[in-house]
């Protein structure tokens, strides 16, 4: 067994044990309280989640929310990338963009949800909220990434008559990758949480947030927990998937570690 496999296995075991500890604590708490309306046990939640997984509306709700929130995230990320590049090369534009982006960042998400309820049809509210949450966060990260480009390499590129494309491809892009990864990781989590919160308030037909709302209104606490577990699981899968995708796409633009000698 190689040391890498052994390390991966021991890390998996450690995380498994930690998860088991908290699930046990939850199970004991549920037994002691003995009121499923307030705190259902993890076994009850797991069983309910399993039941939901076998129903068609469950997957329809996931598809509904996922499509809109991911669309909002992508619009926010690529919009932020465009603005960051423009702001980096045109500093007056960056100064102009700073106040609205700071306001967007500091405004409570609930205020935007209420406003968006007035402006937009409820099915697309979660996309708009996700977009608003992601835009300032990704903009700041990507702008910082562009600023972190090595000035010594930029000088070298100038002396060796690099084309603007070469400067971007070989100097700015490698500097941008770690910041883009951080932006994806944080932004996706933000977009997901804010998008679902928007759905809880807007109650669009067939969204995950609407299912949460219905579970609350009908006092189906087990359903509430099961939908929350599904949201958490999806958030994790989405984040890991997006980070893996960005890492894969940017492998060629990332400085290899010292031990990776030959290409």
């Amino acid at each position, binding site marked *: 067994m190689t040391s890498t496999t052994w390390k991966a296995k021991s890390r998996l075991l450690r995380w498994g044990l930690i998860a088991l500890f908290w699930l046990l604590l939850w199970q004991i708490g549920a037994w002691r309280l003995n009121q499923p309306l307030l705190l259902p046990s993890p076994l009850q939640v797991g069983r309910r989640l399993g039941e939901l997984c076998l129903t068609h509306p469950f997957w329809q709700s996931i598809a509904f929310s996922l499509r809109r929130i991911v669309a909002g995230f992508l619009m926010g990320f690529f919009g932020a990338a465009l603005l960051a590049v423009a702001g980096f090369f045109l500093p007056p534009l960056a100064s102009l963009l700073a106040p609205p982006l700071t306001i967007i960042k500091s405004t409570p998400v609930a205020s935007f949800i209420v406003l968006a309820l007035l402006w937009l049809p409820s099915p697309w509210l979660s996309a708009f909220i996700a977009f608003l949450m992601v835009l300032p966060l990704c903009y700041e990260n990507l702008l910082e990434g562009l600023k972190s480009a090595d000035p*010594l*390499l930029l*000088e*070298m590129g*100038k*002396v*060796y*008559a690099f084309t603007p494309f*070469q400067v971007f491809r*070989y*100097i700015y892009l*490698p500097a941008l990758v770690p910041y883009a990864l951080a932006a994806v990781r944080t932004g996706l989590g933000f977009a997901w949480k804010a998008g679902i919160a928007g759905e809880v308030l807007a109650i669009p037909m067939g969204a995950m947030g609407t299912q949460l709302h219905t579970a609350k209104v009908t006092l189906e606490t087990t359903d509430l927990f099961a939908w929350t577990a599904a949201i958490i699981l999806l958030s994790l899968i989405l984040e890991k998937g997006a980070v893996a995708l960005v890492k894969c796409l940017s492998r*060629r*633009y*990332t*400085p*290899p*570690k*010292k*031990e*990776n*000698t*030959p*290409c």
Partner: protein
Amino acid sequence: MLNARNISFSYGNRPVLQNLSFSLEKGERLLLLGPSGQGKTTFLRLLCGLLKPQRGTIQRPSRLGVVFQEDRLLPTLTLEENLCLVSRTPALARQIGEELGLGEYFSHYPAALSGGQRRRGALGRALAFPCDALLMDEPFQGLDEKSRKKAAQCILKYQEGRALLVISHEPKDAERLKARPITLESLMI
């Protein structure tokens, strides 16, 4: 080809170069000697156009091959890619790399190379770059005697026809490079 007339430069209130004039012709080889902290690197940065003199004028060819004080190889490219990127003829870039003893490291990334290998990589890149003048700041830094000799032979071979200015604090390099030694004091009026 490369001319500096009455140039002066200071960092804030600290003057570094005053009234300095310099000229380098095609095929000429000069070795700029002097202790560190004297302003040799500042002078090279002025000649490259990376700094602007506060007084005086500099005329330079449009393309200069430069070995900086730091290696400045692109970390996301292999050594071979670094050499070929700036050259119009990749075969020549590879040949220079081979002659500098780097052939077996072509597929390595800069992070996996030793200091001496990176230095030779930076030297190879400058030699492979199609230009009229070569400016080198301590090109033999971190190289052992054998590598220095090989690098000097390579410079002499591929410099031919181009102007060469090498900054060093090692007087022996004048002999190695068959270059005329000069100092910054001798350039100041």
